[in-house]
């Protein structure tokens, strides 16, 4: 396959707090290709959002720091770029669609001014051109009578419309990579479907790549080409979407799939994954999922498994299912 648009390998972002080092992201690898959607799934607090913030280098310093790994965007390591060049990439080549359209819009500026912000910052055009582009961006996300609504304030828009505005802001400079951090959690189901359809449109029409962060596996099945399942700051399984649903290997992925309610199925109870995710400051020495795992072996609590390739496009981090049980891990590969 061609060179990926974004290739993240061995990413580690830690927070240095008074309670100790919180390893929010500790070994994340994935690739995104043009025109594809990568889903990142996992429980709350497993490092999904911190991963995206790390890609944009927006982790709050000085407590939070990306201490290891590589983020290659079109072959260029973003972690090594000077801040000024990084500013030129944010919003321009890589754009973020944030989770809550209510709070990510500035209440005292009109939506037009906010969409024009990225255009003026990156394209150095005059206000009139920027305004035309902003209207075009609003039209592209399906806001009716965009030319007049551009002068309205965020509170004059409904929730779904506001999320469209946020997407228009992200699209205004035609980025190559869109990162959508739970773009639909704050919306009701029908609006969710509209927003997802809109994002799918964008992907096809502009050949943009999308990283979609979500904990809704239904959304993943509908939207994504590839899926990275995260647990406790690590990618535990990575594969194309069909394989993940048809043939999940990691016990955590299986647990996640079992805990989805099936429509039309008369089951009295869902099957939850027992226990709680571990504190990221006090991770056990072995596999972080071991205490909750149904297929636990002694080795699991002693050594961290590696993310092993078990098939083309299928990687798993597990001693048991990846058949790593007998092969001794190479020295120093405890991550």
């Amino acid at each position, binding site marked *: 396959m061609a060179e990926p648009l974004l290739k993240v390998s061995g990413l580690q972002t830690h927070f240095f707090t008074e309670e100790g080092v919180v390893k929010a992201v500790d070994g994340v690898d994935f690739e995104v290709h043009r025109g594809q959607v990568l889903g990142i799934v996992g429980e709350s607090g497993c490092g999904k959002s911190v991963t995206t913030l790390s890609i944009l280098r927006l982790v709050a310093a000085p407590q939070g720091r990306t201490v290891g790994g590589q983020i290659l965007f079109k072959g260029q390591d973003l972690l090594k770029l000077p801040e000024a060049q990084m500013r030129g990439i944010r919003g321009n080549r890589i754009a973020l669609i944030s989770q809550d359209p209510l709070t990510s819009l*500035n209440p005292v500026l009109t939506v037009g001014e906010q969409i024009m912000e990225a255009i003026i910052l990156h394209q150095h055009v005059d206000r009139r051109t920027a305004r035309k582009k902003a209207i075009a961006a609003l039209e592209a996300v399906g806001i009716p009578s965009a030319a007049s609504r551009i002068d309205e304030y965020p509170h004059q828009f409904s929730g779904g*419309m506001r999320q469209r505005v946020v997407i228009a802001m992200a699209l205004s400079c035609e980025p190559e990579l869109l990162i959508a951090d739970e773009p639909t959690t704050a919306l009701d189901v029908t609006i969710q479907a509209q927003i997802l359809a809109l994002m799918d449109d964008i992907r096809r029409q502009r050949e943009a790549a999308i990283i979609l962060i979500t904990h809704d596996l239904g959304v993943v099945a509908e939207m994504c080409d590839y899926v990275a399942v995260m647990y406790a700051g690590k990618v535990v399984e990575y594969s194309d979407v069909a394989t993940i649903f048809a043939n999940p290997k990691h016990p955590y992925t299986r647990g996640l799939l079992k805990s989805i309610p099936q429509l039309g199925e008369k089951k009295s109870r869902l099957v939850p994954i027992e226990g709680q995710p571990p504190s990221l400051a006090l991770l056990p020495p072995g596999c972080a999922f071991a205490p909750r795992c149904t297929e636990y072996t002694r080795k699991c609590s002693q050594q961290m498994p590696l993310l092993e390739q078990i098939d083309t496009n299928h990687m798993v981090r597990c001693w048991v299912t990846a058949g790593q049980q007998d092969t001794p891990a190479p020295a120093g590969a405890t991550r």
Partner: protein
Amino acid sequence: MSMSTSSTAIREQAPEQVMPPAEPFLRMVVRRFLKHRLAVISLGVLVLLILASIIGPHFLPRFDALDLDNPNQAWPSLAHPLGTDELGEDVLARLLVAGRFSLFVGLTAAFLGVFIGTIVGAISGYFGKIVDTIGMRMTDMFLTIPLLMLLMVLSSFTRGKTFVPFLPQDLQQLPIIVAIIGTTSWMGVARLVRGEFLALREQEFVEASRAVGGKSFWIIVRHMIPNAMAPIFVAATLSVGDAILLESALSFLGMGVQPPVPTWGNMLTNAQQYMISTPWLAVYPGLMIFLVVVSINFIGDGLRDALDPKLKGR
């Protein structure tokens, strides 16, 4: 994919907004301000005083110190509605001219103070950490200095110096007094703005702006200050009153604006000597200061209520 066929249809169906057009912010503020009766009356009083100071003196008799027929220390009469002072000058005329200077000093000094305070507070609150510590300890330090003493020292150092070339000599002292008051009364605003910024900085739209590549300066000016405008505006209003009081106090102590340029403060000083013979000379400037400061405080109150987003329902 089934999505691709349905997506365009969904897009066209995007529901038209049915919300009523929201009331423009400014109109809402005005409407709420008008409900605050004391504030409206105060605004009327203040506007009247300002207009009277600007226009009034043109309609009143010019004072001629060489006209020996001028009665001095006269009782109020038709010719001199508020009487005359010890030099025979019409008190009403002098009071209104003094109003020009007192109000000018109050307004400009307050503006300067709010300007400095906003900058210090914004930088402290936005950058936090060591910058915040330095900014806020500097603010604390300024607050510990007895203000009046500092003002007196500063004004005695700068007296008689020329800073603004095109002003006539006797008005040279005005910009100096403004600068002195402005640079020593920004601390309250700085603390207020810093507090606002500490909260604003955590807002997602600030991160959103950073995510599209905004620099710190851009984020502060474009996103955060507009959001902090309401409390800044209220503080600015209230500090006009403080600045007028400070100027009066300074002038009263003889360290402020010097006669023959009249201000309400130095008119009070002057009247002190004639408390027995013509006590009304002290009453008028005192009353003016009182009226202006009280009005401004009520206006500030009214603005605070009108701009408070928590009272949206009213």
